[in-house]
Protein backbone atom coordinates (compact mmCIF):
# COMPACT_ATOMS: atom_id res chain seq x y z
CA UNK A 1 0.00 0.00 0.00
CA UNK A 2 1.89 3.04 -1.25
CA UNK A 3 1.04 6.56 -2.30
CA UNK A 4 3.45 8.97 -3.92
CA UNK A 5 3.07 12.71 -4.32
CA UNK A 6 -0.45 12.95 -2.88
CA UNK A 7 -0.85 15.92 -0.55
CA UNK A 8 -3.82 14.81 1.55
CA UNK A 9 -4.03 18.21 3.25
CA UNK A 10 -4.65 19.92 -0.07
CA UNK A 11 -6.81 17.18 -1.62
CA UNK A 12 -9.91 18.63 -3.28
CA UNK A 13 -13.20 16.76 -3.68
CA UNK A 14 -12.54 16.39 -7.43
CA UNK A 15 -9.10 14.88 -6.84
CA UNK A 16 -10.43 12.69 -4.03
CA UNK A 17 -13.10 11.29 -6.34
CA UNK A 18 -10.50 10.74 -9.06
CA UNK A 19 -8.30 8.98 -6.53
CA UNK A 20 -11.17 6.73 -5.46
CA UNK A 21 -11.86 5.86 -9.11
CA UNK A 22 -8.20 5.00 -9.67
CA UNK A 23 -8.17 2.79 -6.58
CA UNK A 24 -11.20 0.86 -7.88
CA UNK A 25 -9.64 0.60 -11.37
CA UNK A 26 -6.39 -0.74 -9.94
CA UNK A 27 -8.29 -3.36 -7.93
CA UNK A 28 -10.44 -4.31 -10.93
CA UNK A 29 -7.41 -4.82 -13.15
CA UNK A 30 -5.59 -6.87 -10.48
CA UNK A 31 -8.57 -9.16 -10.03
CA UNK A 32 -8.79 -9.59 -13.80
CA UNK A 33 -5.10 -10.42 -13.87
CA UNK A 34 -5.58 -12.94 -11.07
CA UNK A 35 -8.55 -14.50 -12.88
CA UNK A 36 -6.41 -14.90 -16.01
CA UNK A 37 -3.63 -16.47 -13.94
CA UNK A 38 -6.10 -18.92 -12.43
CA UNK A 39 -7.40 -19.80 -15.90
CA UNK A 40 -3.84 -20.47 -17.04
CA UNK A 41 -3.28 -22.72 -14.06
CA UNK A 42 -6.59 -24.56 -14.29
CA UNK A 43 -8.08 -23.18 -11.10
CA UNK A 44 -11.59 -22.30 -12.35
CA UNK A 45 -13.35 -21.71 -9.00
CA UNK A 46 -10.82 -19.11 -7.90
CA UNK A 47 -10.91 -17.58 -11.40
CA UNK A 48 -14.70 -17.25 -11.17
CA UNK A 49 -14.47 -15.54 -7.79
CA UNK A 50 -11.78 -13.12 -8.96
CA UNK A 51 -13.95 -12.21 -11.99
CA UNK A 52 -16.86 -11.55 -9.63
CA UNK A 53 -14.62 -9.26 -7.57
CA UNK A 54 -13.40 -7.49 -10.74
CA UNK A 55 -17.02 -6.85 -11.70
CA UNK A 56 -17.80 -5.41 -8.26
CA UNK A 57 -14.78 -3.13 -8.34
CA UNK A 58 -15.78 -2.00 -11.84
CA UNK A 59 -19.30 -1.16 -10.63
CA UNK A 60 -17.97 0.90 -7.71
CA UNK A 61 -15.54 2.65 -10.00
CA UNK A 62 -18.26 3.50 -12.51
CA UNK A 63 -20.53 4.86 -9.77
CA UNK A 64 -17.73 7.05 -8.45
CA UNK A 65 -16.80 8.19 -11.96
CA UNK A 66 -20.45 9.16 -12.64
CA UNK A 67 -20.53 11.17 -9.43
CA UNK A 68 -17.31 12.91 -10.40
CA UNK A 69 -18.65 13.70 -13.88
CA UNK A 70 -21.86 15.11 -12.43
CA UNK A 71 -20.02 17.40 -10.03
CA UNK A 72 -16.99 18.40 -12.05
CA UNK A 73 -17.64 17.45 -15.67
CA UNK A 74 -14.54 16.90 -17.73
CA UNK A 75 -12.23 19.04 -15.57
CA UNK A 76 -8.69 17.63 -15.85
CA UNK A 77 -7.51 15.22 -13.21
CA UNK A 78 -4.59 16.03 -10.92
CA UNK A 79 -4.02 12.46 -9.73
CA UNK A 80 -2.53 9.59 -11.72
CA UNK A 81 -2.08 5.84 -11.37
CA UNK A 82 1.61 6.43 -10.67
CA UNK A 83 0.57 7.97 -7.34
CA UNK A 84 -0.97 4.80 -5.96
CA UNK A 85 0.02 1.18 -5.56
CA UNK A 86 -1.91 -1.70 -4.03
CA UNK A 87 -4.48 0.37 -2.11
CA UNK A 88 -7.42 -1.98 -2.66
CA UNK A 89 -5.83 -4.35 -5.16
CA UNK A 90 -4.72 -7.64 -3.64
CA UNK A 91 -0.95 -8.01 -3.37
CA UNK A 92 0.65 -9.60 -6.44
CA UNK A 93 1.94 -12.47 -4.33
CA UNK A 94 -1.55 -13.24 -2.97
CA UNK A 95 -2.29 -15.40 -6.01
CA UNK A 96 -1.27 -19.04 -5.97
CA UNK A 97 -1.73 -21.89 -8.43
CA UNK A 98 -4.54 -24.23 -7.40
CA UNK A 99 -5.76 -21.89 -4.68
CA UNK A 100 -9.10 -22.88 -3.24
CA UNK A 101 -12.12 -20.56 -3.32
CA UNK A 102 -11.57 -20.05 0.41
CA UNK A 103 -7.98 -18.91 -0.22
CA UNK A 104 -9.15 -16.62 -3.02
CA UNK A 105 -11.79 -15.08 -0.76
CA UNK A 106 -9.29 -14.70 2.07
CA UNK A 107 -6.99 -12.80 -0.31
CA UNK A 108 -9.91 -10.54 -1.29
CA UNK A 109 -10.83 -10.00 2.36
CA UNK A 110 -7.25 -8.94 3.13
CA UNK A 111 -7.54 -6.38 0.32
CA UNK A 112 -10.76 -4.94 1.71
CA UNK A 113 -9.08 -4.64 5.12
CA UNK A 114 -6.09 -2.97 3.46
CA UNK A 115 -8.34 -0.45 1.69
CA UNK A 116 -10.16 0.28 4.95
CA UNK A 117 -6.80 0.91 6.67
CA UNK A 118 -5.84 3.30 3.86
CA UNK A 119 -8.95 5.47 4.35
CA UNK A 120 -8.63 5.34 8.15
CA UNK A 121 -4.99 6.42 8.01
CA UNK A 122 -5.62 9.17 5.44
CA UNK A 123 -8.54 10.73 7.32
CA UNK A 124 -6.60 12.69 9.99
CA UNK A 125 -4.57 14.48 7.30
CA UNK A 126 -7.61 15.72 5.36
CA UNK A 127 -8.64 19.36 5.70
CA UNK A 128 -11.56 19.71 3.31
CA UNK A 129 -14.89 18.76 4.96
CA UNK A 130 -16.36 17.30 1.74
CA UNK A 131 -13.27 15.16 1.14
CA UNK A 132 -13.42 14.01 4.74
CA UNK A 133 -17.07 13.01 4.30
CA UNK A 134 -16.21 11.12 1.09
CA UNK A 135 -13.35 9.24 2.74
CA UNK A 136 -15.60 8.34 5.70
CA UNK A 137 -18.17 7.02 3.26
CA UNK A 138 -15.55 4.99 1.41
CA UNK A 139 -14.12 3.72 4.69
CA UNK A 140 -17.57 2.52 5.78
CA UNK A 141 -18.16 0.90 2.38
CA UNK A 142 -15.01 -1.12 2.87
CA UNK A 143 -16.48 -2.49 6.10
CA UNK A 144 -19.61 -3.48 4.17
CA UNK A 145 -17.46 -5.20 1.54
CA UNK A 146 -15.59 -7.06 4.26
CA UNK A 147 -18.91 -8.25 5.70
CA UNK A 148 -20.03 -9.44 2.25
CA UNK A 149 -16.84 -11.45 1.72
CA UNK A 150 -17.06 -12.86 5.24
CA UNK A 151 -20.64 -13.95 4.56
CA UNK A 152 -19.53 -15.70 1.37
CA UNK A 153 -16.66 -17.33 3.24
CA UNK A 154 -19.08 -18.64 5.88
CA UNK A 155 -21.10 -20.38 3.16
CA UNK A 156 -18.11 -22.41 1.97
CA UNK A 157 -17.50 -25.98 3.04
CA UNK A 158 -14.19 -26.46 4.86
CA UNK A 159 -11.04 -26.73 2.71
CA UNK A 160 -9.42 -30.08 2.06
CA UNK A 161 -6.47 -29.04 4.18
CA UNK A 162 -4.12 -29.24 1.19
CA UNK A 163 -1.95 -26.20 0.55
CA UNK A 164 -0.67 -24.95 -2.80
CA UNK A 165 2.75 -26.24 -1.75
CA UNK A 166 1.37 -29.77 -2.03
CA UNK A 167 1.00 -29.22 -5.77
CA UNK A 168 4.51 -27.93 -6.39
CA UNK A 169 7.01 -30.32 -7.94
CA UNK A 170 10.09 -30.87 -5.86
CA UNK A 171 13.40 -29.43 -7.05
CA UNK A 172 15.05 -31.44 -9.80
CA UNK A 173 18.81 -31.79 -9.99
CA UNK A 174 20.33 -31.37 -13.43
Amino acid at each position, binding site marked *: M*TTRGIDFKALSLKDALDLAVLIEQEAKERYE*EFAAQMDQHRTPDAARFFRYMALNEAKHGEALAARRAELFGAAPSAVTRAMIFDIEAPDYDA*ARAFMSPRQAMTAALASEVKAHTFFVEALPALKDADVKALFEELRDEEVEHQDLVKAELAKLPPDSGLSDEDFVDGPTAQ
Partner: protein
Amino acid sequence: MSANATCEFQAKDYKSDLKPIWCPGCGDYSVVQGIYRALAAIGRPPHEVAFISGIGCSSRIPGYTTAYGFNTVHGRALPIAQGIKLANPDLMVLAAGGDGDGFSIGGGHIAHLIRRNIDITYLVMDNQIYGLTKGQLSPTSQKGRTTCTSPYGSLENPVNPLLYVLAYGAGFVAQASPTDLAGMAAIIEEAIRFPGFAFVNIQSPCVTYGEEAQQIKGLKAISENLSSLGHNPADRLAAMDLAQHYGEKLHLGVFYRNPEPAPTYDALIRERQAALSKDAPPKERILDLFIKK
Protein backbone atom coordinates in the same frame (compact mmCIF):
# COMPACT_ATOMS: atom_id res chain seq x y z
CA MET B 1 18.07 7.36 -25.68
CA SER B 2 16.19 9.64 -28.00
CA ALA B 3 12.73 8.81 -26.75
CA ASN B 4 10.49 11.56 -28.01
CA ALA B 5 6.80 10.95 -27.53
CA THR B 6 5.11 11.09 -30.90
CA CYS B 7 1.56 10.24 -29.87
CA GLU B 8 -0.37 9.10 -26.83
CA PHE B 9 -0.05 5.45 -25.85
CA GLN B 10 -1.49 3.69 -22.88
CA ALA B 11 -0.01 0.81 -20.93
CA LYS B 12 -2.49 -1.61 -22.49
CA ASP B 13 -1.16 -0.78 -25.96
CA TYR B 14 2.07 -2.59 -25.08
CA LYS B 15 0.31 -5.67 -23.70
CA SER B 16 0.14 -8.61 -26.09
CA ASP B 17 -2.66 -11.16 -26.27
CA LEU B 18 -0.35 -13.84 -24.95
CA LYS B 19 -1.19 -14.71 -21.33
CA PRO B 20 1.80 -15.03 -18.99
CA ILE B 21 2.34 -18.53 -17.67
CA TRP B 22 4.48 -17.61 -14.70
CA CYS B 23 3.48 -19.12 -11.36
CA PRO B 24 0.70 -17.06 -9.80
CA GLY B 25 2.27 -14.71 -7.28
CA CYS B 26 5.51 -14.40 -9.28
CA GLY B 27 7.17 -10.99 -9.06
CA ASP B 28 7.51 -10.91 -12.84
CA TYR B 29 3.78 -10.11 -13.21
CA SER B 30 4.44 -6.84 -11.50
CA VAL B 31 7.60 -6.23 -13.53
CA VAL B 32 5.80 -6.60 -16.85
CA GLN B 33 3.16 -4.11 -15.64
CA GLY B 34 5.97 -1.71 -14.74
CA ILE B 35 7.41 -2.13 -18.24
CA TYR B 36 4.01 -1.40 -19.86
CA ARG B 37 3.70 1.77 -17.79
CA ALA B 38 7.24 2.91 -18.55
CA LEU B 39 6.76 2.33 -22.29
CA ALA B 40 3.47 4.24 -22.20
CA ALA B 41 5.13 7.15 -20.39
CA ILE B 42 7.82 7.30 -23.08
CA GLY B 43 5.25 6.95 -25.82
CA ARG B 44 7.24 5.33 -28.62
CA PRO B 45 4.94 3.16 -30.76
CA PRO B 46 5.40 -0.59 -30.16
CA HIS B 47 6.88 -1.15 -33.63
CA GLU B 48 9.78 1.16 -32.74
CA VAL B 49 10.71 -0.93 -29.71
CA ALA B 50 12.72 -4.17 -29.77
CA PHE B 51 12.73 -6.34 -26.68
CA ILE B 52 15.41 -9.03 -26.51
CA SER B 53 15.78 -11.74 -23.88
CA GLY B 54 17.77 -14.85 -23.05
CA ILE B 55 16.32 -17.97 -21.49
CA GLY B 56 14.50 -18.31 -18.19
CA CYS B 57 11.19 -17.45 -16.58
CA SER B 58 11.76 -13.70 -16.87
CA SER B 59 13.03 -14.04 -20.43
CA ARG B 60 9.46 -14.75 -21.51
CA ILE B 61 8.73 -11.04 -21.11
CA PRO B 62 9.17 -9.95 -24.77
CA GLY B 63 6.29 -12.24 -25.76
CA TYR B 64 3.98 -10.45 -23.37
CA THR B 65 4.57 -7.11 -25.07
CA THR B 66 3.48 -5.82 -28.47
CA ALA B 67 7.02 -4.66 -29.22
CA TYR B 68 9.25 -6.60 -31.59
CA GLY B 69 10.66 -9.42 -29.53
CA PHE B 70 13.37 -12.03 -29.72
CA ASN B 71 13.54 -14.76 -27.08
CA THR B 72 17.12 -15.77 -27.92
CA VAL B 73 19.45 -18.38 -26.43
CA HIS B 74 20.69 -18.68 -22.89
CA GLY B 75 22.86 -15.75 -21.83
CA ARG B 76 22.94 -14.16 -25.27
CA ALA B 77 20.35 -11.42 -24.96
CA LEU B 78 22.96 -8.66 -24.82
CA PRO B 79 25.08 -9.50 -27.90
CA ILE B 80 21.93 -9.94 -29.97
CA ALA B 81 20.45 -6.71 -28.61
CA GLN B 82 23.73 -5.01 -29.51
CA GLY B 83 23.57 -6.29 -33.08
CA ILE B 84 19.98 -5.09 -33.42
CA LYS B 85 20.83 -1.65 -32.06
CA LEU B 86 23.79 -1.26 -34.41
CA ALA B 87 21.81 -2.48 -37.41
CA ASN B 88 18.93 -0.15 -36.67
CA PRO B 89 19.98 2.58 -34.24
CA ASP B 90 16.55 4.20 -34.44
CA LEU B 91 14.99 1.30 -32.54
CA MET B 92 14.54 1.61 -28.79
CA VAL B 93 16.21 -1.58 -27.61
CA LEU B 94 15.50 -3.27 -24.28
CA ALA B 95 17.09 -6.47 -23.03
CA ALA B 96 15.78 -8.62 -20.23
CA GLY B 97 16.62 -11.80 -18.39
CA GLY B 98 17.27 -13.36 -15.06
CA ASP B 99 20.28 -13.37 -12.77
CA GLY B 100 21.45 -16.75 -14.08
CA ASP B 101 21.10 -15.71 -17.70
CA GLY B 102 22.81 -12.36 -17.09
CA PHE B 103 25.50 -13.09 -14.55
CA SER B 104 26.40 -16.71 -15.17
CA ILE B 105 26.34 -17.89 -18.78
CA GLY B 106 25.92 -14.34 -20.10
CA GLY B 107 28.14 -12.62 -17.54
CA GLY B 108 30.98 -11.98 -19.96
CA HIS B 109 28.87 -9.86 -22.28
CA ILE B 110 27.87 -7.15 -19.82
CA ALA B 111 31.34 -5.65 -19.52
CA HIS B 112 31.59 -5.11 -23.26
CA LEU B 113 28.24 -3.40 -23.62
CA ILE B 114 29.19 -1.12 -20.76
CA ARG B 115 32.62 -0.22 -22.17
CA ARG B 116 31.09 0.45 -25.58
CA ASN B 117 28.22 2.35 -23.98
CA ILE B 118 25.61 0.98 -26.33
CA ASP B 119 22.23 2.64 -25.90
CA ILE B 120 20.39 -0.39 -24.50
CA THR B 121 18.38 -0.76 -21.31
CA TYR B 122 19.10 -4.04 -19.53
CA LEU B 123 16.52 -5.26 -17.02
CA VAL B 124 17.59 -8.17 -14.84
CA MET B 125 14.93 -9.94 -12.81
CA ASP B 126 17.06 -11.15 -9.97
CA ASN B 127 15.42 -13.94 -7.95
CA GLN B 128 18.59 -15.67 -6.73
CA ILE B 129 17.57 -19.03 -8.20
CA TYR B 130 17.18 -20.94 -11.47
CA GLY B 131 13.39 -21.21 -11.29
CA LEU B 132 12.52 -22.46 -14.77
CA THR B 133 14.69 -25.56 -14.30
CA LYS B 134 13.22 -26.13 -10.83
CA GLY B 135 15.44 -24.56 -8.25
CA GLN B 136 19.19 -24.75 -8.78
CA LEU B 137 21.82 -22.45 -7.30
CA SER B 138 22.23 -19.26 -9.35
CA PRO B 139 25.10 -16.74 -9.37
CA THR B 140 23.26 -14.42 -6.98
CA SER B 141 22.16 -17.14 -4.51
CA GLN B 142 23.30 -16.36 -1.00
CA LYS B 143 26.20 -18.31 0.54
CA GLY B 144 24.83 -21.23 2.53
CA ARG B 145 21.71 -21.51 0.36
CA THR B 146 20.38 -25.04 0.18
CA THR B 147 19.11 -26.14 -3.22
CA CYS B 148 19.08 -29.40 -5.14
CA THR B 149 22.54 -28.56 -6.49
CA SER B 150 23.81 -27.45 -3.09
CA PRO B 151 22.20 -29.93 -0.68
CA TYR B 152 24.66 -29.06 2.11
CA GLY B 153 24.50 -25.31 1.45
CA SER B 154 26.31 -23.18 -1.10
CA LEU B 155 30.03 -22.58 -0.48
CA GLU B 156 30.15 -19.70 -2.96
CA ASN B 157 29.79 -15.99 -2.41
CA PRO B 158 27.09 -14.45 -4.61
CA VAL B 159 27.80 -12.10 -7.48
CA ASN B 160 26.85 -8.55 -6.59
CA PRO B 161 25.13 -7.32 -9.80
CA LEU B 162 25.15 -3.69 -8.71
CA LEU B 163 28.86 -3.56 -7.88
CA TYR B 164 29.61 -5.56 -11.03
CA VAL B 165 28.10 -3.00 -13.39
CA LEU B 166 29.23 0.01 -11.37
CA ALA B 167 32.81 -1.27 -11.41
CA TYR B 168 32.73 -1.62 -15.19
CA GLY B 169 31.56 1.98 -15.48
CA ALA B 170 27.89 1.74 -16.41
CA GLY B 171 26.36 5.19 -16.83
CA PHE B 172 23.04 4.31 -15.24
CA VAL B 173 22.55 1.80 -12.45
CA ALA B 174 19.34 1.37 -10.47
CA GLN B 175 17.43 -1.16 -8.42
CA ALA B 176 13.69 -1.72 -8.25
CA SER B 177 11.28 -4.24 -6.82
CA PRO B 178 7.63 -5.33 -7.20
CA THR B 179 7.14 -4.01 -3.67
CA ASP B 180 6.66 -0.61 -5.34
CA LEU B 181 5.19 -0.87 -8.84
CA ALA B 182 4.90 2.86 -9.44
CA GLY B 183 8.49 3.40 -8.32
CA MET B 184 9.66 0.54 -10.52
CA ALA B 185 7.86 1.96 -13.57
CA ALA B 186 9.48 5.35 -12.96
CA ILE B 187 12.94 3.77 -12.66
CA ILE B 188 12.50 1.74 -15.86
CA GLU B 189 11.33 4.87 -17.66
CA GLU B 190 14.36 6.80 -16.43
CA ALA B 191 16.68 3.97 -17.48
CA ILE B 192 15.20 3.92 -20.99
CA ARG B 193 15.54 7.67 -21.29
CA PHE B 194 19.20 7.57 -20.23
CA PRO B 195 21.40 8.09 -23.30
CA GLY B 196 23.62 5.02 -23.06
CA PHE B 197 23.80 1.60 -21.41
CA ALA B 198 21.41 1.49 -18.47
CA PHE B 199 21.10 -1.33 -15.97
CA VAL B 200 18.20 -2.02 -13.62
CA ASN B 201 18.40 -4.86 -11.13
CA ILE B 202 14.88 -5.87 -10.19
CA GLN B 203 14.46 -8.00 -7.08
CA SER B 204 11.62 -10.16 -8.31
CA PRO B 205 10.67 -12.96 -5.92
CA CYS B 206 10.36 -16.58 -7.04
CA VAL B 207 7.27 -17.77 -5.19
CA THR B 208 7.98 -21.42 -5.91
CA TYR B 209 11.68 -21.88 -5.20
CA GLY B 210 12.59 -18.59 -3.48
CA GLU B 211 13.30 -18.37 0.22
CA GLU B 212 10.86 -16.80 2.65
CA ALA B 213 13.07 -13.75 3.23
CA GLN B 214 13.08 -13.03 -0.51
CA GLN B 215 9.31 -12.87 -0.84
CA ILE B 216 7.44 -9.56 -1.01
CA LYS B 217 6.98 -9.32 2.76
CA GLY B 218 10.67 -10.01 3.39
CA LEU B 219 11.73 -7.53 0.71
CA LYS B 220 9.48 -4.83 2.13
CA ALA B 221 11.10 -5.34 5.53
CA ILE B 222 14.60 -4.59 4.23
CA SER B 223 13.77 -1.99 1.58
CA GLU B 224 14.96 1.60 1.78
CA ASN B 225 14.48 4.30 -0.79
CA LEU B 226 17.77 5.81 -1.93
CA SER B 227 16.27 9.28 -2.23
CA SER B 228 15.09 9.15 1.38
CA LEU B 229 18.67 8.32 2.40
CA GLY B 230 19.81 11.55 0.74
CA HIS B 231 21.93 9.65 -1.80
CA ASN B 232 23.34 11.75 -4.62
CA PRO B 233 23.03 9.63 -7.80
CA ALA B 234 25.84 11.62 -9.45
CA ASP B 235 28.31 10.24 -6.89
CA ARG B 236 29.65 6.96 -8.24
CA LEU B 237 31.77 6.13 -5.20
CA ALA B 238 28.82 6.67 -2.87
CA ALA B 239 26.81 4.39 -5.17
CA MET B 240 29.48 1.68 -4.88
CA ASP B 241 29.47 2.07 -1.12
CA LEU B 242 25.69 1.56 -0.99
CA ALA B 243 25.81 -1.28 -3.51
CA GLN B 244 27.93 -3.30 -1.06
CA HIS B 245 24.79 -3.86 1.01
CA TYR B 246 23.26 -5.96 -1.79
CA GLY B 247 21.67 -9.02 -0.20
CA GLU B 248 21.37 -7.43 3.25
CA LYS B 249 19.33 -4.35 2.38
CA LEU B 250 17.11 -3.58 -0.57
CA HIS B 251 18.01 -0.11 -1.73
CA LEU B 252 15.45 1.09 -4.26
CA GLY B 253 16.10 3.88 -6.71
CA VAL B 254 18.95 5.21 -8.83
CA PHE B 255 22.40 4.29 -7.53
CA TYR B 256 24.28 6.10 -10.26
CA ARG B 257 23.39 8.35 -13.16
CA ASN B 258 26.37 9.77 -15.01
CA PRO B 259 25.74 13.54 -15.04
CA GLU B 260 27.82 13.84 -18.21
CA PRO B 261 26.96 10.77 -20.27
CA ALA B 262 29.64 9.69 -22.73
CA PRO B 263 28.74 9.44 -26.43
CA THR B 264 27.12 6.13 -27.25
CA TYR B 265 28.82 3.55 -29.46
CA ASP B 266 25.90 3.63 -31.89
CA ALA B 267 26.27 7.40 -32.26
CA LEU B 268 30.05 7.09 -32.75
CA ILE B 269 29.51 4.41 -35.39
CA ARG B 270 27.13 6.69 -37.25
CA GLU B 271 29.68 9.51 -37.10
CA ARG B 272 32.44 7.23 -38.34
CA GLN B 273 30.27 5.95 -41.18
CA ALA B 274 29.38 9.50 -42.18
CA ALA B 275 33.03 10.56 -42.09
CA LEU B 276 34.23 7.62 -44.19
CA SER B 277 31.35 7.53 -46.62
CA LYS B 278 32.63 10.43 -48.73
CA ASP B 279 35.83 8.49 -49.61
CA ALA B 280 34.11 5.14 -49.89
CA PRO B 281 34.29 3.46 -53.31
CA PRO B 282 31.00 2.85 -55.09
CA LYS B 283 29.33 -0.40 -54.08
CA GLU B 284 30.01 -2.03 -57.43
CA ARG B 285 33.77 -1.52 -56.91
CA ILE B 286 33.89 -2.66 -53.30
CA LEU B 287 35.57 -5.98 -54.23
CA ASP B 288 38.46 -4.11 -55.87
CA LEU B 289 39.78 -3.37 -52.40
CA PHE B 290 40.45 -7.07 -51.91
CA ILE B 291 41.94 -7.81 -55.32
CA LYS B 292 45.70 -7.43 -55.74
CA LYS B 293 46.64 -4.98 -58.39
